[in-house]
Structure formats: C-alpha cells, structure tokens
C-alpha cells in the first residue's frame, strides 16, 4: 500500500511533482497552462501494419457526443488507414464487460469505462505513460484527479489509463423558482442550500435528489454530501472510518434535506430526476448538463422556456471548506491482449488532440469535462454562462474511494450502494444516523478486508 505517496501527492498543487517525477515539463502558471504548449515533439507511436481496432465505449447521454466521436474516429481512419469499430453499450454494462475482458484476456482493444476500473486490473493494461506525458506536456498538464484515476496507485508515475474526462455534476435549478423563494443567487454552502430547499418546499416548488439504487445520480450526490461534512469511507491507510461524528453530521443534514424533497425520491433511479425536472415538477436537482441539453435542443416551446430558466451551480461547500464533488470519470484503457497496442495508443492520442477534442466537447455541449488543463479555454465553457460550472468538474472533484486508494474495494463498495443506502436510511428515518453509519461500516469492512 502506498497511500502516503498518494496523500502527499494530493497535497501538491497542479500535479507539479508528479510531472517532475515523470520528467514532463508542466506549466506552472495557470494562464500559461490554458494554452497548448508549443514545441512539444510529436509522438511517434508507430502503429502496427494492418492494424484494426475495436473500441467499446459507454452509450452517449447527449447526441452530439456520439456524432462527433464517430466523425473523429472516421477522420483517424482516413489519416492512418487503421480501421476502427466503435461499439457503445449502456454505461453500467461497460464495467462488467471490461472486467470480463480483463479476466478472460480477450475483447475490444480499447475500453472506455467508468470510475476506477483501471485500478481493478492494472496489470492487464498497456502502459500509456508515453501518450500521457506527451498530452500532459502539450495541453497544460493533467488535473490531480486525472492523475489519480490514470496512474498506478495514483502515484503519477506509470499511466495505466488515459482519462477521457468526466461527466460533471452540478446543481441544476430553476432560476425563477429560486428568486420566488427569496434567493437572488444560488447558495455556496451546505447551510445555504438547506435554507433554499426549505424555502422552495414552502413555496410548493420543491427539489429532489435520487435516493434509490441509482448508480450515477445516487452515488454522486451522496458522496458529495458525506465528504462535504468531512466523513469518508476509509482513511489514507484504507481503514474503514465511515462510522464517525462527521458522517453522523452529514446524515443529520441529509435528514433535514430529505424533508424538503418531492415525494418519491427513495424510488428514483438515474432517469427520474431528469424526467421530473423537465416536467417542471422539481426546481433543484443534482445532474449532469444533460437536462439543460435536452431542454435547450428540444423543439418543444415549453421545454425551451424551462431551458431559459435553468441555472447551474457547483455543489455547495460543506463544513470541510473545500469542494467535495464526485464526478463520473471515464478512463480509456488499452488491454494487453490487444494485438495492436501502438495503434490503440495512437487512436487515443489522436482523439485527445485539440483538433478533435474541442469540437467534440462542443458538440456534447460540455457534457464531458476535460482532464487536461488547456481545454479550460475551450469556448464551449463561456459561450453560454450556464455551461461554466461544469468546466471545473475535474479540477475540483475528489476521486472515488477517498481518502484511500482506488481499487477493487472502492469499486465494490460503490457498486453495493453502501453510501447511497446509508444516506437513504438516515434521510428517510428508517434508521437513525448512528445505526445507518454502523451498518455502512459493517458492509464496507467486508470489501476493505481484502
């Protein structure tokens, strides 16, 4: 276990030390970081002759993403002659498929999966350090969270996956409802959020967050909540410490917050809050930019009206005093069984280059937030001020399994909905916060025992 390295590492700003460790030159100044660096020698990856690639990725949430991804892929084929077949599967199905591919040693050459998958079978993945260093040097460096997800043990040395970016989450709200409830701007801290939610409830325009076994929306906001109050599943040495006074505080807050929710959130799966929001039934929820995308691109006048009224805000800051978001990171992994690892790396490099990446981000209307700092200057983030909060998703997030190391245990704990269940139990009053935390502790210990 190398947690000390990682903990130290996380303290370091802007991944500087990691950059130094890998011999890459990172721009220290943020302004300099915002532009692609000139003079980075091109990477010569020498794709294998006659290479053909199969890529498995998660199925798009917004149409523009898939269109441009495929268009960019076609461009790659035209340029290199390497045939690429891109298959998409529902995002929750990619993870088990990737695991099976890793297990049996056969499958797509590249899999674009979710969260800490690369850390579950690091020895089955092709080392992509050269591509990562090249991209990092050229595009202003990787964010801390990119390094945590992309490198072995999060140490910043050996890259086992390239983060494609993340689906950022933010609070999506109805501006007019917020103003009617007596708030001119969206609250920046958890106390303010509770007050706003209470005021909205009193006005008959409540909010709602998913509390069912919703793999995406449920996990994302409950982890933010737990971390915002200083609670965490494990400490830096991977000891389970979830049953803590900080967790209890978070759960007590959840209980109060739940009182302001629209009825039915315990049954909500991932799509429910989108549907309810677009129908005008809720005025605050936690979601990606997909609600706004759907409303804005819809021909329906009613939805267009909602789009004009939508506001976005980063998740409020809790007592710990810093952002504690969890966002859905997409690691791109090249598997060792691939016959064409160089071609696969070349494909990933190509897709991450500015000429491809920025138009793709634009087509997805910012659904995917960049893992590389230079893309902060992509006009998509400023062309509509409502996009801006999603720009910082990777910059301000905390990685899965915080504050321990990512791997099998963190993935399994999340797949088992330990935090979601804990928050739901306490919020709904079916268990006291103390009982809920104890139950979560017991369940988590099983996974962290290994």
């Amino acid at each position, binding site marked *: 276990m190398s947690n000390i390295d990682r903990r130290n590492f996380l303290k370091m700003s802007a991944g500087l030390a990691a950059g130094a460790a890998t011999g890459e030159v990172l721009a220290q100044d943020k302004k300099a970081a915002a532009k692609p660096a000139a003079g980075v020698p091109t990477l010569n990856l020498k794709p294998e002759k006659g290479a053909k690639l199969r890529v498995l990725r998660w199925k798009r949430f917004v149409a523009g993403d898939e269109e441009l991804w495929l268009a960019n892929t076609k461009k790659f084929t035209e340029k290199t002659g390497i045939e690429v077949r891109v298959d998409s599967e529902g995002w929750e199905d990619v993870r088990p498929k990737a695991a099976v591919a890793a297990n049996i040693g056969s499958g797509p050459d590249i899999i674009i999966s979710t969260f800490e998958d690369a850390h579950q079978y690091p020895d089955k993945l092709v080392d992509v350090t050269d591509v990562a260093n090249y991209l990092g040097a050229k595009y202003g460096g990787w964010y801390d969270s990119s390094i945590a997800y992309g490198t072995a043990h999060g140490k910043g040395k050996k890259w086992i996956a390239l983060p494609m970016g993340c689906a950022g989450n933010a609070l999506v709200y109805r501006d007019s409802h917020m103003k009617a409830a007596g708030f001119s701007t969206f609250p920046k801290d958890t106390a303010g959020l509770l007050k706003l939610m209470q005021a909205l409830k009193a006005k008959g325009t409540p909010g709602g967050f998913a509390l069912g*076994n919703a793999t995406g929306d449920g996990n994302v906001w409950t982890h933010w909540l737990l971390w915002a109050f200083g609670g965490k599943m494990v400490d830096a040495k991977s000891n389970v410490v979830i049953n803590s006074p900080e967790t209890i505080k978070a759960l007590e807050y959840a209980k109060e917050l739940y009182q302001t929710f629209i009825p*039915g959130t*315990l*049954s909500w799966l991932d799509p*429910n809050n989108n549907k309810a929001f677009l*129908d005008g039934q809720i005025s605050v929820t936690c979601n990606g930019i997909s609600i706004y995308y759907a409303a804005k691109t819809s021909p329906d006048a009613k939805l267009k009206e909602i789009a004009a009224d939508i506001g976005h805000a980063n998740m409020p800051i809790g007592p710990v005093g810093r952002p504690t978001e969890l966002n859905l990171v997409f690691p791109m992994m090249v598997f060792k069984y691939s016959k064409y690892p160089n071609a696969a790396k070349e494909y990933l490099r190509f897709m991450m280059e500015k000429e491809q990446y920025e138009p793709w981000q634009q087509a997805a209307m910012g659904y995917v937030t960049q893992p590389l700092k230079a893309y902060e200057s992509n006009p998509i983030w400023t062309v509509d001020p409502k996009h801006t909060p999603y720009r910082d998703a990777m910059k301000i997030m905390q990685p899965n399994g915080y504050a321990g190391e990512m791997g099998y245990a963190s993935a*399994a704990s999340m797949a088992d*909905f330990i935090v979601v269940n804990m928050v739901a139990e306490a919020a709904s009053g079916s268990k006291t916060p103390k009982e809920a935390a104890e*139950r979560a502790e017991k369940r988590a210990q099983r996974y962290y025992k290994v």
Partner: protein
Amino acid sequence: MNRLLENRNFLGLAFMLPAAVLLLLFLTYPLGLGTWLGFTDTKVGRAGAWVGLDNYEYLFGDAVARLSLFNTLFYTVVASVIKFALGLWLAILLNQNIAFKSAVRAVVLLPFIVPTALSAIAFWWIYDAQFSIISWVLVKLGWIDTYIDFLGEPWLARLSTIAANIWRGVPFVAICLLAGLQTIPPSLYEAASIDGARPSQQFWYVTLPLLTPIIAVVMTFSVLFTFTDFQLIYVLTRGGPLNSTHLMATLSFQRAISGGALGEGAALATAMIPFLLAAILFSYFGLQRRAWQQGGTDK
C-alpha cells in the same frame, strides 16, 4: 462395425451422446463452476483462492443478504399463490364455451409474450413517483391528494413488484392449466352428474384430482421462474428502496458483476439452489403421490 451397430446398448449410448454432451457442457459445467466459485474469493480480473465456507458465513451475517432472502421468499410465496389462484380461475373460465374462444385465449397469453424488459418498463412508468397513471387517475377522481409512492415505500414497493410479476405470470399458469383441463374426458363429468354431483363437487372430486399432475409441473416452473426473477426488479427498482426489493438473483448480480466479487455473488446464487430443489421435491412428492397418477392403480 456392423455388429456394433446392431448392439442395442451401444446404439443407445451413441444416441444419447449428443444430448449428454450438451447437458454436460452447458448445464453441468457452468453449474459446477458456479458452485466452485462460491467457495473461492475470486474477483473479476483475478483468480481466487479456496476459502471454504467463508462466503456463506459472511452472507449469513450480512443484513442485506438476509433481507434479500426474506424478500425472495416473500416474493415467491405471495406471487405464486396468487398466480395459481388466478391462473386456475382463468383456466376454468376459458374452458367454458365462450364467444371468440380462441381469440380470447390468445389475448390472455399476451402478457407472457411481451418481453419482460418491455413490460417492466411499462410498469416502471405505471409506478413512477411523478408520472404514475394510477395516481393520476385517482387524483383526478379526487380520491387521493398526493401521488402514491409505489416504489418508494419498502412494503408498497414489495407489493408493487409482486403485482407486476403476477400480471406477467398468470397467463402461463392459466394456459397450462387450461391444457390440463381439456385432457379430462367429458365422460367423467357426465358420470359425475348422473351420480348427482353438484358443480363444486365435480370440481373437487373430478377436476382437481385429475389436474394435480399438471398443477405440480406448472407450479414448479412458476415457482422457479419467480424465485429466480431478475429483469423485473432490475428495471423497476434495482433492489431499492433501502434494498427492500432486492431478490437473491439481483443482489447476486450486484455483488458479482457490478461489484466484482464473483465468489460472493456465486455463493449467493448457489444458496438459491437448496430452495429451488425443495420446491421441486415438494411438488414432485407432494402433488403426485397417488399411484394412478404415476401409471399404477390405486389400492
């Protein structure tokens, strides 16, 4: 060679071989592998070591696993009993002379024909916390003020998923029992009515005894399908709220595939086998005990 081909024993074996290979390859091997995995701590992506009963010990102490066992038993018992009652009733109705008999019978089968995932999605909308058609109608009628939280309250969620399962399962029971009813010779009913049996007595002393063998088969299948149900729960609730609708099958998937704990998931799936065996043995011995039902004569 010729002599070999005339040997009855050899021929018998040779003819059985393809079926035996198929069974071994596609049934015995996976089942054995699953059982073996249950005794290891295999994780997705890495081989496991033999851990004996460790997985089972853990599952026994795990509140969620115990809850899923309770949910599964409750789900199976309630759904099966109701499916049997409704199915038998429907079969008897369909066995009468009614107008458009074949059309009606075809329609009855519809819920069974629709792919489970599709009907589950339909139920998902029917039960939606915000868009439920049932709640909407009741609110419009002025009978209730707020939408019913079908899948948000633990007990209501259990009953709602059971209702969806029943809707899907009744046609299978009904059509099979109908087939059974039609094999009963009309002469038996004639004889019974000549002896002065009332309709209820005819049912009790003619229909039911002759129907028990098929009931045994149908209900065994029905119980097996219900006990191992997955799709409906996966679409409707993913096991929520608060794990109150997690069945052993869905929890096994969650632990093994999403969570990567193949060994534990396999153990959970293997733990279902004794219950399934018990159900099979019960119907086999409990409902087919009389000698005439097995081709002999009653003493």
